Each structure stands twice: as structure tokens, then as C-alpha cells.
């Protein structure tokens, strides 16, 4: 069962990574003048869209998310609505956090918000897929004994690495090298994406090597 889950996770992650690659390559071929630095916002939205669509599809197909108690259409709709609301709220939350961390307040609000959307689709969306719209569970998952399945552990790793990557992405901004990628928010979004990608790689590997120590109380 372990190997099965890990293999499923690895293939899922491969698909997600491939979709991110496609989201970068395909528009470059189709849209004239598309580049990661030049049309950065476009790139951000294309990557976020790809990740969001692929994650939702895969997790829905795999049926990872917690079993719903009711199967009525109304309940499902309200769940969907709440998920969308949470996603939007998390965009706002990330925006505020990034501004508090020193992003310009008014000057490049659109850039900041795009970064927030990217971060949300890399982190919050996964939470939504794995845990459902339940903030309590989200907070609970990020504790030492909070993970209750392989997917929870994977979620911990990818989210932490994504946020860490975005955080580290802020480091080169003050340097006076005058490189194109030092412009706000390119380094941060690149950092987040690289953090996420490394999370995709690290999570299955780490779980594979620590599968003996991992014991989940209830599953």
C-alpha cells in the first residue's frame, strides 16, 4: 500500500511539473513576445492556471480529498463555493502578507497580487484539494503530529518549500547587479516556483526513505 501511494504521488508530481513546463513553453510558441521576464505577469497566470487545473483534476480523479458526509448537489455546490471563497481570501491574505513584508503598497499592486495568486495556487489550492475547505484542519496539518496520511506529509513539504522559496527570492532584490530578474516580483515568483518544484521532487523521495518512521494514527 505504501509503495502504491508513493508511486501515485510521484506520478502526480511528474504530471504537475510537466504541466508547469508546458505552461511556460506552449505560450512562448503561441503568443508572440512571450518571455518569463518580459511578460512576467502573463507567465505567472499561465503557470498558476496550469497548476490549478491539473491539481484539481488529478486530486479529484484520485479521490484524495476527505470523504464528504453528504452527497447532495447542494452540499457539493456550497463546498465548491466555499473553496472558491477560500481561494480568493487566501489571495488577499498573501497579498497583505507580502505587502507587510516590504512590497510596495500602491506602486505595483498588480504585480504583488499576481504573486499572491501564484502563491495561493501553489499552496492553498493543494490544501483545498487534500483537506477540503477547513481552516482548522489546515492549521492542524502544519504541526509535528498533524499529518494523517502520506498526502498530508507531502502537503507539509511542498507548502513549506514553496513559501521558503518565495522568502529566499526576496534576497537578491536589494543587490545592485541590475539583472532583469531582480525586478519585483520576478525573483520571488521564480523562488516560489523553484521551491514548489523541489517540493514536488523532495516529498516522494523523503517519504520513500522515511516510510519506516512514518506512522499515521488514523487513516
Amino acid at each position, binding site marked *: 500500500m505504501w509503495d502504491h501511494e508513493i508511486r501515485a504521488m510521484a506520478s502526480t508530481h511528474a504530471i504537475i511539473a510537466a504541466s508547469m513546463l508546458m505552461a511556460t513553453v506552449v505560450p512562448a510558441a503561441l503568443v508572440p513576445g512571450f518571455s518569463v521576464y518580459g511578460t512576467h505577469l502573463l507567465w505567472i497566470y499561465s503557470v498558476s492556471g496550469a497548476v490549478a487545473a491539473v491539481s484539481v483534476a488529478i486530486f479529484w480523479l484520485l479521490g484524495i480529498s476527505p470523504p464528504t458526509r453528504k452527497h447532495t448537489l447542494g452540499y457539493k455546490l456550497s463546498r465548491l463555493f466555499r473553496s472558491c471563497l477560500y481561494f480568493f481570501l487566501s489571495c488577499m491574505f498573501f497579498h497583505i502578507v507580502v*505587502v*507587510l*513584508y*516590504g512590497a510596495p503598497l500602491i506602486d505595483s499592486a498588480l504585480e504583488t497580487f499576481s504573486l499572491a495568486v501564484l502563491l495561493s495556487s501553489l499552496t492553498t489550492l493543494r490544501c483545498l484539494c487534500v483537506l477540503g475547505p477547513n481552516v*482548522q484542519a489546515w*492549521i*492542524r496539518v*502544519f*504541526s*509535528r*503530529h*498533524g499529518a*494523517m496520511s502520506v498526502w498530508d506529509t507531502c502537503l507539509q513539504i511542498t507548502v513549506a518549500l514553496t513559501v521558503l522559496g518565495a*522568502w529566499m527570492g*526576496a534576497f537578491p532584490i*536589494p*543587490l*545592485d547587479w541590475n539583472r532583469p530578474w531582480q525586478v519585483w516580483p520576478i525573483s520571488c515568483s521564480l523562488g516560489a516556483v523553484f521551491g514548489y518544484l523541489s517540493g514536488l521532487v523532495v516529498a516522494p523521495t523523503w517519504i520513500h526513505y522515511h516510510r519506516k518512521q512514518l506512522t499515521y*494514527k*488514523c487513516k
Partner: protein
Amino acid sequence: MPAFEETCSSRPAQCRLYPFRADPPTTTMQRIKGLTTGSLPTFVDMGSNFASRAISDDNLIHQFGQVGKRVVFMGDDTWESLFPKKFYRSLPFPSFNVHDLHTVDDGILQNLYTTMVGDEWDVLVAHFLGVDHCGHRFGPDHPAMADKLIQMDGVIRSVINHIENDTLLVVMGDHGMTETGDHGGESQKETDATLFLYSAIPLFPGPPSQDEPDVVPQINLVPTLALLLGVPIPYSSVGQVLLPLFPEFGPAQGAVAGLSQLEALWINTKQVSRFLVTYSALAKDIPSESLAVLQHQYENLSSEYLTFTREGRSPPRELSLALQAYLTSVQDVCRATWARFNPLKMAAGLIILALACLMCFTVSEMSSVLVRENNFRLRATVVVALLVGVCVAAGQLLSWGYVELAWCMAATAFTSELFFLCQALQSKTSTGVKNEAKAPKSASWRTPRYLLSPPLVVTLLRFASMLSNSYVITEGQVVTFLLRSLALYIPLRLNWDGLLLPANQDPSKPASLLPSPASPPSTVRKESSTLVAFFALLVGSLYLSLFFHGCREEQHACQPSPFLSSLARVKDNQLKNIFYVLSVSSLAVWTYLLRKCLQHYGNLNSSGGTVFTARWILPLLSVCLGLHWAVSASPENSFRNLSELIKLAQIFIPRAAYCLLGLGLALIWLDPLTVFVKTRPASGTLKNLSVPPPRYRASTGISPQAELHHLIPQIYQRMRRSLDDGETSGASEVDNRPAVEAYGLGTVYSAPLLLFCGLLGLGLLHLHPEGMALSFLLLLFEMGALLHIHASSTTLCDLRGVYSGGFNVPWTPVVLWSLAATQFFHATGHLPTFSSIQWEAAFVGFPGGHTGTFLPASLVTLNTFASHILFAVGCPLLLFWPLVCEVRGSRAGKASGEGGEDAVMEMRLREKPQLFSSALLQLSARYLFILGLQVFASVCAAAILRRHLMVWCVFAPKFMFEASGFLVSCVSLLLGVSLVLRVDVAVGHWFKRLVPDVSR
């Protein structure tokens, strides 16, 4: 200055106008040195701007004196201190008072024309200061500046009209000014001024030609004036003569001395090359290859010149150009390698500093061992170190014949550090062998896992950030970023450990680490929400504090905070009123919060000195501040009839504030207890700990000292219980003393310290521009938020029994605290550059200027390092705050953890004096370690990057600010810790007095 252009366009043969470029640093004293010695400045002289010492190098004034020229001087008294007794006649006027725009100029003008007309001079130096002071006071775009410039224009015109045929008029600025009217750095606005030359008879062949210099370096004036007046060029000058002032061929007609351009250049070249040879032989810091090139060039030139003169031919124009090129390249080489470095000393200093940091770290990790083991041979260490120092001194005396104190001290410090570390290592191993049980716990600090914990990683990041000029330039934002990140780490970590949310909330959660989490979820929830609320406060105040930053020259897009300029500079009246109201209300909030806090913990009921300070001096001081701001902000012309009164008020209100501050601090020091005890039964209003009453357990049963309970219900209940315990154990009351001391008096340590900080903060605010009141309020918020976050996280750990025991403050809050100190250094408008020093602070309460240099220097120091001082003094609060906040709801946890004790807050510290002292030692050692590491980083940066382009404008000033900040912080930390010890002694005495009463 229309006078320049008009003269130059109407009489082009008599006048020249050049841009005049100074070498940084552009402080007045350095410029006067440069203008008289012709040498390039060394940066370290900068600090001595106010205690200007006499120039010992060869200089123009000295040379004039040697040949009997009469030098008359008038103006800026810096000259008089640089050249004492060198002038034929001297009329110095006080220069330090920036507010005084007219004394110096009027003094000069009264004497200038009479002197000029008279025949008693050969060289006349008049240094006007009005424009400079006006820039410092109002900035370059103020109407007052226009008035001043018009006045100067008139002066120049009339001097031009008075001048005689044999006189050369040189008008120059010693430096420029920035947008804010300050100077000292090396931006082009600061270095560039004007040089205007005029003579009453035609001096130049015609209007300026193509090959005249574009920009004249300031040092070039020195050889020019020397040769024109027929004196030797000062020895250490590397300047180059200003050729247009010399006739092109042969002896000139009339006024100027008889040197042709080529002769002047030749003399200049010989002098410079002689200096270069001697200097390079002595200092050896000029790269040998460029020295060889220069030497070769010089030999070629000299042989060429000598052949021409021997043959009597007129030398070609190329030779003159080659000589000029030689002089220019010497200047460039000297500029590039001027500062002298001693690599050996630098390495020694770095090693000593690194060892000192390591020592601090060791002390902080071994504080309990140090306190426990009295046989730790500190005295031996000191003795050995002193011995080594004396030995080194003796060795130097024997071998060299003189003593270099630096090396002796270095040897002493090095030995003591080495000795200490060896001993620490020994004791570590011995204790490790002795009790294996304790060994793993105490040895854990040397594992990489411990060293890579986030607070230390943040410290290392900060260390690394000092090595990059971009990070130093944006240090304010960088530190804020690190501070936020580390603060965010606390709740994340708590959540990771499962301590943030109530444990039994989630049934699916695995049974927690503890057998039974005794804390009710409501308490945890409350504590967590406190934590989050204060985290929000912290982040908010951090964000707002970014609006108070100043701007460096390197930050082009930056706008300095509007709060940084004093109110007197604000022109719009309505804006002024808004600023004033904002400042005063934040002042009021500061005072109110402090009083409220003290009142909340019941520290305002006794009649001691501290309480008197809190009740009367604190509000009075803030009223004083408000009044002073009102007076100094009132426009000078609006109340003409009251101007005398305003002048008086400007002197006396700040002085009254200083007196109040001194009185308050002294009172706190003399009588730090805020405990209220009344032994007479009459009074029924005893409230020292009952406002609001901590929920002490009600008395159970009647004791032998029953009547005492009625007299002083709160404390004595506690005492009785302990006396009961004592009786059962059969000990006498005197032996019981520690047990008795353990109760009551919740905030006896923190209250005086808090009040001390608050008063000090008001005093330091007094030295800042008015708008900084808001920033200081944010500082108070941030301090409070940090303390509460620390307290809440400790409590949350406590509630689950994770608490390791002892009062040790973990690294995270200490690192946060030190980062906050740096952050508020920036948020109070300071920057680690010399041009951003707020010199106005020296005139608060002394608008008439100073006579000495100590008082203004210390006022400016206090202003510059205000946040360092406040945070260092308040550092012990980190130790007390978890105990102060304990009463809020962790009692249940305590009850399970420590056997039914009630909240006794800081009295816990007296229960375990050893733990207390070790925790205090650890806290200060940790704080010192972090500060020391910052100094070490800046020293490393300055040492490694000493050939970096930015070294003189970024790294060297950063190093000097960091080092002085470290010294100031050390002194303040000592002050804070000694205040705590003072309170401890006072509490001890108090108990001694109390116990016999109880037993009687």
C-alpha cells in the same frame, strides 16, 4: 552669484571661474586641512571634527610664517584651533552653533574692509559661515538662504571694488551641500563648490581657452598659492599648480611672482616626487609596479627638462603636458592607496574580536555552570592575562625601546580569552564525566543542529548582509525583513510543536506528549490569541516604522521621511499644526501607557522615589517636551513682542527637562522599590497587589500571627503560609528568610526597569526632531509586542509542561530584541553615514552654543544611539516579562507543574537566586554575542573590502557606527543589569526589615 558671472564676462582677462572639487570627507575641518597641507585626507580624522587638533603636518600657513608673511585670519574658529598662534592677527568667531547665522559673518564684515585698506597683512583669510549654517538649519531652498547668498554677493562685489593691484582674490567654497543642506559625504553635491579668481590687473591672456582645467581639485590650490607667494610648497602636498595663473613664457610682468608655467610645474614635480619617494619608503602601501612606473616617468621628465634648460632652449609644449600628466597620475595613485593599512594589526584585531564573540557564546551556554562553580578561576585568568600584557610591554621596551600600547592590550585580551576558553573546555569535559545524566543536555549546544536553528541562522544572515554594500545601504529594510521573518517563526514553531491550539480540541489528534494536559483549552486559546494579537501589533508597527526612514545618497529613488525635519522647517502652518498635534498625542499615549502598565501591576501605591517619579516626574517631563516643541516650532517672526520670552523658554524648558530626567533616573536608582507595605493597622486602603487583585488563594485556617493578616492582608497571608511551613520544619525565622521572600510583590524588578526605560525614552526623544515622537511610540509598541510574544510563547510552552525549567531566555527573543534595536536606529531617522548625524541634538537647551566639546558630543551620541540605548537597558525585561504575564492564566499549569504554587510572578526569581543570576548572565551574554557578531561582521567587511570602491562611503562608516553603537549598548546593558542588581539588593534589605516585624 551674479557677481561672478558679471565680473568674468566684463573683464575676462582678470578673472576665472572653475568648479572646485573637494576630496571626501567634506567636513569643514578636513577641508581646511586639505586646503592648507595639500594632502589627501585619511578617513579616520573625521570623528575629530569637533575636537579639532592642531595640524602638525607642513602647511601653507606655517610656510607663510617661516618667510615672515603676515597672515591675518577672520571667521570660523576651526582655523584658530588648527593653527594656534600661527596667525599674525586672528579674529575667530564661534563656529559650532548652527542656529546662529550671522555672528561669524557680521564679525568678519566689521573688520574685513578696515583690514584690507590697512597695510598690516600679506595674506588675509576670511572664512564666512552663514551660508553653511543656513544650509544646516533651513536647507538650500529656504528664503533665509536667498538672503544669505545676496549678502555674500554684495560682499564679493565690494571686495572686488576695494582690491588693489598687487592682490589676488580667491573666493571658494570648502565644500558643497546636499539637498538637505548637510555635508560630510562624497556625493557630487557635497564635494563640488566654486573657485573664483580675480585680480585688479589683467592676469590671464584672455578669456578661458580650451586647455584650461574643467574641474580644479581642491588640493591644487596649495602649490599654486605657495609658488605665487614665493614660499616652498608644503611637504606632503600632492597638488598640481594651476597653470593659468602663471605666465606662459619667461618672467612675468608685474604682480605675480616671476615663475613661468614650466618652472612652476618643474618645482611642483620635484616636490611631489620627493614626497612620493619618502612616503613610499615609509608606508609601502603604494603598489610597487605603479610606483616603478611613476619613478621611471619622473626620471625621463627630469632628464628631458634639464637638457632643455642647460641648452637654454625653450622647451616644447609637450614637456609641460607630460609634467602635468605625471602630477595627475601621482594624484590618482595616492587617492587610490591613501589610507594606510597594517595587515598584522588588522588580523590580530579580527582574531581577538572573533575570540571575544566565541567567549560570549560560551558564557551564554555555560552560564549555569559559571554561576554554580565558584572555583572557575576568573581571577587567575585576569592575573595571567595582565602578566602577559606586562611581559609584552617589557619585551617591547627592551627590544624597540618604546611601548606600543595597542599590542600590549591585544596580548592581554588574547591571553585572557584563550585562558578562559581553555578553562571552559576543561570544565565542560569534567562535568561531562562527573554526571553523565546532565551531559547530553548541556553538551547539545555544540551540535550543528543547534547551531542551525532559525534564530542563529537569522544572525548569520545578518552577518552576511554586512559584507555587501547593497545590503548595508538598504540595511533598514533588510533588518525589518529579518525581524518579521524571525517573529513569524515563533507562532509557526509553536504550531509545529502542537502548542498553539488546545490539545484536546481535536479528538483525532494523537495523545499528546504529556500524560495529562492540565490546561483548559480556554486558557490556551486565550494565550494563543494574545500571541497572535501582539504579533499583529508587531507587524503593524514594523510596517509603520518604515515611514520614518531617512535616505542615503546612494538611494536615488528614496524620499526622506517628512517627520525627520524639525517643525521649524515646515512652512505650511496647517501641516505644522497637524504634525504638532500628532507628536504631542503620541507623547501623551507614551506617558499614559507607561503609567497604565505600572498601575495595572499595582506599582503606583507606595510613597517611594520610583513611585514619585512615575506619578509626577514622568507627566511633568512630557509636558516639558510638549511645551518645548511648541516654543521651538513657533515661527520666529510671528510673536515679535514675545521673542524675548520665547528665547528664554528655548533655553530653560529643555534644561528643566534635563533636570527632571536626571532627578527621575536618580530617584529610581536610589529607591527602586515599588512595594507598598504598611505596618500600621489604621489604613484600610492597602492595594499594592490588589489592583487588580491577582487571584491569591484565600487564607485557610488561623495562624499564630493571625492579627497580622488583618493588618496587611495581601502580603502577610503569603508570609504566614511560608512561616507555617517554616515552623513545621522547625527553623527560625531568620533561616526562613528566603521562603518569606518568595511571596508578594509581583513586579518588583520590572517596574523600576520599565519606568527607567520610559523616562530615558522621553529624554532621548527630546533630542530628536518632533515628528520622531510617533516613531518612539512605535518603538514602545514594538518593545511591548516583543515582550508579550515572548511571554505568551513561554506560557504556552509552560502550559504543556515543555518548559525546561529555569528562567533562561531562548535565542529567538534575544535575536529579535537586538534586531529591533538596529531597526529603530533606522526608524528614528538615523543612518550609518556621517552626513546623517543629527547635529541639531547638540543645541537642544543650548541654542547659544557650547563652550566645551564634551556636552555636545555626548548629546549627539545619545541622539544617534537612542534605540541602542533603550533596547540595551530594557534587555533584562525579556527575563522578567514571562513571569509578569504569568498571572494571567497559567496558574493551572503551574499548579500541575510545580506543586500547587500560586502566581508569585517575579518573586520566583528570589526563590532560586542561582537560576536567576545564571539566567541574567546568559541573557546579557547572548545579547552581547549578537551585538559583538555584528561588530565583527562590519570589521570583517571593512578589512576584507578595504580596496572596494565603496569602502569609504559604506563600509568604513558602517564599521565606525557599529563599533560605537556596540560600546554604547554595552554601557547601557551594564546600566540595565546593574539596575536589576540594585533592585535585588533593595528587595533583600526590605525583606530583612520585614521579617523581624512579622516574627514579633
